[in-house]
């Protein structure tokens, strides 16, 4: 009996993933636990291990194809089965029926709209039967979400309509941009998710408030102590300041503030932008924040971040200081509704006590989603951040 290789669900809100790259090819022998393929989502890339030992018999998707979580993307013939038919991901015309029905998710601007054949949206990834009411199943199809892993609150664990998760994070945005979103033909697979997300974000009302802060004091602290950097300080300060500013940490999915203070830190890696998250940053000491950032950065560089390292942050920070650039006005990472961009702390003309003199100046830009955050609260938050940068002693 061949064993299915399924698109894993790597996080609560993951609805689909892309086959970034098959590591093994059809016909290859595989061992259980061995890396089989790379899967990418809008947040990270992930190596999927072979679930069984045998021969990789069928590939049901090619590099770059998207599948819903739980969808069968390949099969492994167990050795006891004898020689298995070997086939690569076939053309639709030649495909046996269950291949044709593996849901392809159209990126044509309407998010994860299922095709007619996705009525066979597959069961729970482990193969156990999902117990869901017919209406819940239909709702899940309409929303393009998988019911695998969903806990039902109906009798005997039945999934009912109210249990069906909301659509893919990007979908709530993507519904705004139904006319856009035709991806360029040579767009690399790994860039698809970010392409879609930014296409959607581009439609949103994202104003900014900005201030250039005099950061001589922080600069001196960094030089003296040596156990933290600019990004760590920003994370440490922002996590604590956010407690008093619930609007700026609104969750766009629910409309209510996030109640945890997980801060995302944008990181540039050879694989592209990733945003690892410092969990419970408001409870960490500054040196611990620094250690955590360093740890996450190393993982990011190595492509070794897990799904638990990314996502579900309440706020993010983007720092272009390492690149020597003074200003960045980033876009919020949905469902977050605000983001702080900081640049390099450079010597610039400043007015101090009425006199013109050089000082280390840091440009802070707060971009925010005006559907949820107004200018005044944004400005108040930024003011508190600026105060932290200009008078760090308050926090330490």
């Amino acid at each position, binding site marked *: 009996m061949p064993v299915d290789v399924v698109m894993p669900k790597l996080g609560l809100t993951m609805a689909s993933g892309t086959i970034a790259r098959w590591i093994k090819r059809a016909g290859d022998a595989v061992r259980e636990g061995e890396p089989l393929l790379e899967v990418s989502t809008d947040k990270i890339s992930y190596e999927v291990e072979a679930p069984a030992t045998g021969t990789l018999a069928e590939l049901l998707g090619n590099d770059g194809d998207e599948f819903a979580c739980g969808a069968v993307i390949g099969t492994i013939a167990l050795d006891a089965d004898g020689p298995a038919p070997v086939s690569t991901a076939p053309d639709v015309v030649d495909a046996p029926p269950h291949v044709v029905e593996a849901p392809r998710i159209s990126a044509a601007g309407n998010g994860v709209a299922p095709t007619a054949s996705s009525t066979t949206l597959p069961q729970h990834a482990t193969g156990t039967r999902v117990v869901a*009411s*017919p*209406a*819940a*199943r*239909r709702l899940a199809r309409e929303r393009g979400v998988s019911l695998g892993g969903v806990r039902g*609150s*109906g*009798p005997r664990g*039945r999934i*009912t*309509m109210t249990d069906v998760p909301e659509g893919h994070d990007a979908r709530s945005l993507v519904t705004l941009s139904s006319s856009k979103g035709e991806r360029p033909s040579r767009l690399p697979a790994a860039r698809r998710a970010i392409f879609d997300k930014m296409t959607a974000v581009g439609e949103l009302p994202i104003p900014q408030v900005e201030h250039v802060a005099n950061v001589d004091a922080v600069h001196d602290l960094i030089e003296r102590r040596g156990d933290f950097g600019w990004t760590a300080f920003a994370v440490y300060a922002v996590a604590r300041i956010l407690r008093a500013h619930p609007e700026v940490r609104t969750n766009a999915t629910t409309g209510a503030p996030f109640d945890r203070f997980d801060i995302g830190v944008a990181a540039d890696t050879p694989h592209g932008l990733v945003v690892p998250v410092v969990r419970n940053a408001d409870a960490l000491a500054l040196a611990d924040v620094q250690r955590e950032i360093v740890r996450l950065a190393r993982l990011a560089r190595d492509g070794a971040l897990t799904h638990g390292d990314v996502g579900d942050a309440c706020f993010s920070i983007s720092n272009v200081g390492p690149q020597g650039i003074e200003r960045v006005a980033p876009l919020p990472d949905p469902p977050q509704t605000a983001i702080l961009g900081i640049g390099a702390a450079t010597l610039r003309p400043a007015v101090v006590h009425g006199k013109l003199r050089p000082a280390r100046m840091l440009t802070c830009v707060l971009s925010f989603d005006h559907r949820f955050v107004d200018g005044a609260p944004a400005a108040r938050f930024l003011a508190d951040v600026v105060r932290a940068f200009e008078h760090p002693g308050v926090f330490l």
Partner: protein
Amino acid sequence: MRTITFSDATLEAMREEMRRDATVFLMGEDIAKQGGIFGQFKGLPQEFGFDRVRDTPISEAALVGAGVGAALTGCRPVVDMHFADFITCSMDELVNQAAKLRYMFGEQCIVPMTLRAPDGITKSAGSQHSQALESWFLHTPGLEVVVPADAEDAKGLLKAAIRSDNPTLYFEHKALFPQKGAVPDDDDFVVPIGKAKVMREGRDVAIVTYGITTGRAMEAAAALEADGIEATVLNLRTIWPLDYGAVADAVARTHRVVIAHEAVRVGGAGAELAAWIAEHCFDDLDAPVVRLGAAHVPVPFAPALQEAMYPKAPMIADAARRLVRREL
């Protein structure tokens, strides 16, 4: 609109139709001199004569058979069964003759007969005077079956039955006769056969029902409102032909449905609807279809026993509540 009793509503219908069409006549046991045991025929022989309102011997087979024969040959007889339970004494005439002649004879004839049958559980009448048999006739091709829920239905459906060119069974619940309800003044007011009526709308659950259970469902809906649950109550009015479309709409809007009737639950009209809903409204269902009906026992005599074995408002509300709370 006027408020009159169910009994008077049927009487008005009879009077209006007998005035309108001289071929309409009425026959049955104990109707002319007595005026019907619920007073539902009083005054008719005085207006139309004892030739048009006839007391028959206790001969149900002849009563229904003659009704069919008269219907075949240019009259519109209204045949009163006294108690629906006695239809059993004339089953051949109803099922093998009335229901089939038009079809078997290649549409050479019509059978415009109305068969009135007081039915239902009331007052410890016992098992042979308390039945609700409409599901037998939903199952018999060739018959129309209507079940009024209130005075408006009583008048409008009886007029429709009399005017229909098909053999129509009119089941009137004995306990409804004294119940008052609003009736339109228009003496051409007819409730079309085959069309259900939405008694109230609500998003959370649909209660599909008919006859006397409609009133009980409305009581249940009022109780549910206090719990913050909004129920749709759909009064079928006609059991055959069923208004499947109205049922489908109610299920599509609410995703949860209780079907309730006083007739025995097993093999009742609700069973046909539940199966149909499962076939045609499957993807609209967020919960199983629930049917409520009398227990599969003959109706007992003792009031304490009689009252225990058929669905009333609290039971309907409870079923609906549990559906909405996802306990079922």
